[in-house]
């Protein structure tokens, strides 16, 4: 039996295959037009490499940017929306805040690129009133039918249904769906109360509209991929990684594609977390550095953190869906260095992309990038990129740095290249701080885990900048994200708005909490049932999202085991006070605490990929892995003769002192002077300051 992880990125599709015979890695170019072509080819090829028939593959876990790309390229479905009379323009007005304070020529994405055009937003009479959710005006069913007729005439087949206060009572939304299904059989329908059953109309409607916008195309992609795999003789189960890091089925993701908008970067975070487990290091900060951007996530105590749902945006639209807490910044190998009109020295966020790419690619790029600076400094060997498959031109890199940076600033080329690296490292360090220090997390207790092919070139500098403990380099930095796909669990989440002041909760309120918790528990259990997970293997956690009465932002508090009773209800408030203090440095112990939303998270452990151990060193010199020695410039400005080692030939327990560079097919690791790189049991590497305790 075998399993495959497939991670589709902007440039490459990375695959990892795990069988009894071992673990295999493969990389193919991403087929941008339809990612499934490359995926199927890659799956066939990696099976050949492993010498197994495709029919032996039991599960394929897939990370995809299909849904994200629809939002970036703005080519989703023409959607219709049925909403409450008087509130046709909630999606047009948004939160009425501009993207910039100081601008007259700003763009407003939700107006210039609406998820649902105004002509297709049809308001119908109906009214549900707070705080009870009682129906004040019944649904005008004729108006719903008339809207359907208009949608049919306009060729629309994706419909959003979102009514005011439906988080209190979804009867009208459900009835409207029945009518739409009668009138428009086969239409793709999203109920706002189903995708995000929480208060705040704009965010809820936006989430539903995003679901309908990316829905038909994403569903088509997933089903098409499944069919192509079948045609190719691959009978395996296809699972998709969601933004929250859990995997789900094709069917569930086709219905709720809004949950896979961050499928792309999620695999990297999971991969990083499991590399941390493998190394026995609980606290890590993952830095996944690509060509144009870097994804950074802080993982304390092996626990991947989730974003506060109030902070989750995709392409300028709020999307209330669980997402791994990560920050993405425009800093990568292709980030362009430039000097502005007033002499300011910047690196990124603009990227040279893959066309023209960095100057050293020789494809006509003349602007210096981070990759060019690495070459100037001798940290990347132009003849060794992708094992020598990609020839780079050091002369072009040098010229770009000299003409665009060194001369205007009156620096030497080496100084300019060092400046580029320092600025990009500083941007990444600030993003690391915003995702760690800014939340009260002390990086001195954390290891930096850099990956992506160029990631390990930055690892030590980042660790120094944020005072991290040390650096952990994964076994295969170029495909850590793909490996992560084989380390994820099934995961489903559901929420329900349950607005109750905890201190005053009487028997009826407690019954409401317990009833809602029970219903949520059952909902996620049924989804796990559907995946064939026996009940005893299901793990279901209920969280209470609370705030002080009158606040606007919820934090997650723990629920007691078993039913909530008059005796233990105060424990929820206590947990909330603690969390508030931890997050903001202050808590209002005497203020009443209000429960807003109950959230159920159901998981089932998948079998984890086992990365084989490598042989231990026999005490011989690591020089068995020595390739050659070349000059390399380090951050302190010194240029030293620096040996290159073939990372694949290092054995567990080998310690390579800096200055050194560890080279492998798709990644380069920089070990500055004063640091030691120790090869760990699985071929992973820990880099620490010489003399520092392990």
């Amino acid at each position, binding site marked *: 039996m075998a399993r495959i992880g497939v991670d589709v990125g902007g440039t490459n599709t990375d695959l990892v295959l795990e069988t009894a015979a071992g673990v295999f890695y493969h990389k193919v170019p991403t087929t941008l037009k339809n990612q499934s072509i490359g995926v199927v080819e890659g799956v066939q090829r990696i099976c050949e490499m492993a010498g197994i028939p495709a029919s032996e593959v039991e599960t394929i876990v897939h990370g995809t940017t299909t849904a994200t790309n629809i939002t970036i390229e703005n080519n989703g479905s023409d959607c219709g929306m049925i909403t409450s009379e008087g509130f046709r323009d909630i999606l047009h007005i948004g939160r009425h805040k501009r993207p910039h304070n100081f601008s007259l020529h700003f763009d407003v994405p939700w107006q210039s690129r609406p998820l649902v055009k105004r002509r297709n937003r049809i308001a119908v009479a109906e009214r549900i009133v707070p705080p009870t959710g009682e129906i004040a005006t019944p649904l005008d069913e004729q108006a719903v039918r008339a809207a359907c007729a208009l949608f049919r005439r306009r060729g629309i087949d994706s419909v959003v249904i979102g009514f005011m206060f439906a988080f209190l009572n979804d009867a009208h939304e459900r009835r409207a769906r029945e009518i739409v299904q009668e009138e428009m059989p086969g239409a793709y329908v999203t109920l706002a109360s189903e995708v995000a059953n929480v208060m705040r109309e704009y965010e809820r409607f936006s989430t539903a509209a995003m679901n309908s916008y990316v829905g038909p195309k994403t569903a088509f992609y997933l089903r098409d991929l499944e069919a192509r795999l079948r045609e190719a003789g691959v009978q395996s189960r296809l699972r998709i990684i969601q933004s929250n890091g859990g995997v789900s089925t094709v069917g569930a993701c086709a219905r709720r594609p809004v949950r896979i908008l961050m499928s792309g970067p999620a695999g990297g975070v999971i991969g990083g977390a499991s590399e941390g487990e493998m190394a026995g290091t609980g606290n890590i900060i993952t830095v996944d550095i690509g060509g144009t951007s870097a994804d950074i996530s802080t993982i304390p105590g092996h626990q991947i953190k989730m974003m506060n749902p109030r902070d989750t945006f995709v392409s300028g639209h709020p999307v209330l869906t669980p997402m791994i807490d990560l920050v993405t910044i425009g800093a990568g190998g292709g980030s362009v260095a430039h000097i502005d009109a007033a002499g300011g020295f910047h690196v990124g966020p603009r990227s040279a992309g893959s066309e023209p790419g960095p100057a050293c690619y020789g494809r006509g790029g003349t602007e210096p990038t981070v990759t060019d600076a690495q070459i100037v400094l001798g940290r990347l060997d132009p003849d060794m990129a992708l094992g020598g498959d990609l020839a780079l031109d050091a002369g072009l890199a040098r010229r770009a740095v000299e003409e665009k940076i060194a001369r205007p600033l009156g620096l030497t080329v080496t100084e300019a290249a060092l400046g580029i690296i320092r600025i990009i490292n500083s941007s990444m360090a600030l993003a690391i701080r915003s995702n760690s220090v800014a939340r009260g997390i002390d990086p001195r207790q954390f290891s930096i885990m850099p990956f992506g092919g160029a990631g390990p070139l930055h690892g030590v500098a980042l660790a120094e900048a944020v005072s991290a403990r040390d650096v952990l380099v994964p076994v295969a930095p170029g495909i850590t994200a793909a490996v992560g796909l084989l380390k994820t669990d099934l995961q489903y989440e559901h929420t329900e708005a349950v607005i109750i002041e905890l201190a005053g909760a009487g028997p009826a309120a407690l019954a409401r909490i317990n009833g809602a918790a029970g219903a949520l528990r059952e909902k996620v259990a049924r989804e796990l049932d559907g995946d064939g997970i026996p009940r005893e293997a299901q793990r279901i956690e209920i969280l209470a999202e609370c705030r002080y009465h009158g606040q606007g932002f919820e934090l997650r508090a723990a629920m007691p085991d078993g039913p909530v009773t008059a005796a233990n209800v105060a424990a929820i408030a206590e947990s909330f006070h603690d969390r508030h203090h931890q997050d903001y*440095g202050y808590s209002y112990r005497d203020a009443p605490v209000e429960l807003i939303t109950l959230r159920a998270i159901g998981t089932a452990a998948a079998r984890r990929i086992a990365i084989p151990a490598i042989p231990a060193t026999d005490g011989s010199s690591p020089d068995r892995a020595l390739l050659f020695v070349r000059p390399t410039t380090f951050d302190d400005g010194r240029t030293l003769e620096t040996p290159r080692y073939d990372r694949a030939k290092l054995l567990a327990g080998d310690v390579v002192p800096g200055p050194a560079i560890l080279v492998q097919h798709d990644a380069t690791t920089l070990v500055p002077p004063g640091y030691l790189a120790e090869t760990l049991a699985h071929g992973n590497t820990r880099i620490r300051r010489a003399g520092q305790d392990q």
Partner: protein
Amino acid sequence: MNAITDTAPEVDPVTLQVIRGSFETIAEEMGHVLYRMSFSSIIRESQDLGAGLFDAQFNTLCESESTPMHIGSIPGYLRGIAETLEDGEWYEGDVVVHNHPYHGASHTPDLAIVVPVFHEGRLVGFAGNTAHHVDIGAATPGLIIDVPDVYAEGMLLAGVKLYRKGRPNTAMWTFIRRNSRAGAQLVSDLEAQVASARLGAKRFAELIGTYGEDVVFGAARQLMDYSERMTRQRIAEIPDGEYAAEGWLDDDGRNRGRQLKVKVTVRVAGDEVEVDLAGSAEQTPTAYNVPFEGSTKVAAYAAFRKLLLDAATSEARVPSNEGSFRPIRVSAPLGSIFNPRSPASAEARFTQCNRMIDLIIRALAPVLPETVIAGSSASISFAAYSGLRPSGAYWVFLEVNEGAYGGRPRSDGPDSIDNLMANTRNNPLEDLAMHIPMICDRYELRDDMPPGAGRYRGGIGVVKSQRVLTDAFITHESERHTEAPWGIFGGHEGAVGKCLVYNAARPEEVTEMPSKFSGLEVKAGDVMAYYSPNGGGYGDPLERPEMTVLEDVLDGFCTVGHARAAYGVVVDLDTETVDMGATNALRDRMRDAR
């Protein structure tokens, strides 16, 4: 004294960027903690706040990107605190609260909390923030317009220490709690401000610890010089000369029908510019005046930042600090609406600021045609709803309603969005109705009047109808019921705003309200429907592509009749097409008729 002197060492460009990034991260973190912790919706949902770090000479080192009216205002507070500080000096562990409009404050509801930052026993700077509070015990709940003087604005706090050497001034906290209709919210939100300011002070001290005082303040000085250089370069691109524009405000909130003039003269000389407000109305006898230091100057600076350093079109982002203000001089005669004499009240100051910015843009239109935009709503709708709960306690709700932009040289004016100096977030209608005895009946683009037609049309204002479920009071601060936003370069003018009050059971019995009114008593079931002004158009409407007009008609941004009358485009709504033959003929006739 800190190290901002001309002899400070030059900080290298890389360290400079690192420190700049640290400053910005600290300011954002301060703002983030403040709005997430706070209780009143004007802070937590609207984010009507500002936060930042300052040096010992009150220069801004960094500020959060929250709402523009707060950005650049805190130095005024710091100067006012210096004039009034209890004990006459700062101690470690002090926390000061300040809101006095004749001692630098922006206006009284915006309370500042300031914490001193010490390094090696010396005062080196400040961490501070401002936030708009729901109620500080003024003459009417929430907002005021028709009041006699500044003493009717509620608590006037100047250099008051809420903590001295780390110990709370409990008498002052009790006083504040007792003198507000929303005392619990006010105190909790002040606690959130204190947490935010202390966090900023801690981060500031850490930064100095990491890089050293010389480097941090040297970097700050260089960043100010950088902002100044950027601003001067842009000013120098404007031809030298004197450019003027004027407009009329509706009234002062008491003397109906008596319009108030706003006159703006912009003098450009080399790389410096002066904004002269001479010729504007005398100060008013109501609260409708603008504190000069904390608001007039701040708004004038903001106008040039929008015009010259547009964040959306500039490749380099200019740091938020004093440097960009240095080449700009602002003057307004003492005793005028933009520079009132004490004890005139000066709480309701927003719409005058917004109109001033609108007029600066208009004045520069002849020389910056590709930069300016047509007339915007340049107003605000700031509504205070209040009433009593069965317990006898007050409920008070402040709401900021949006406006619309004028058409622009390359794009339509954005619709229903906070305008110019305003940039808050709206309060979710569902959140509101769960906590306050009010419900919203309508929140949509207004469709009773079209926006200004043009090659690029003006933005469409909002209509918001809020119904109270108990007897209540409403105070409303708004503008532009009488002078519509102008069109420019052939664009048509937009539409004035309006405000209607009626009972939901008798919607035909409508009272049309003036733009400003104070303490209006309303009954349960009464509705206030606010319509914000529509923006003016930019350029000739006959040059707007036919298909764009068709899209507008399909989306209901424009009627078939308006498409024909203003744009000369003949739309067939049944087939959703343009009759090109009829359109060309009509457009020719319209051109000939000019």
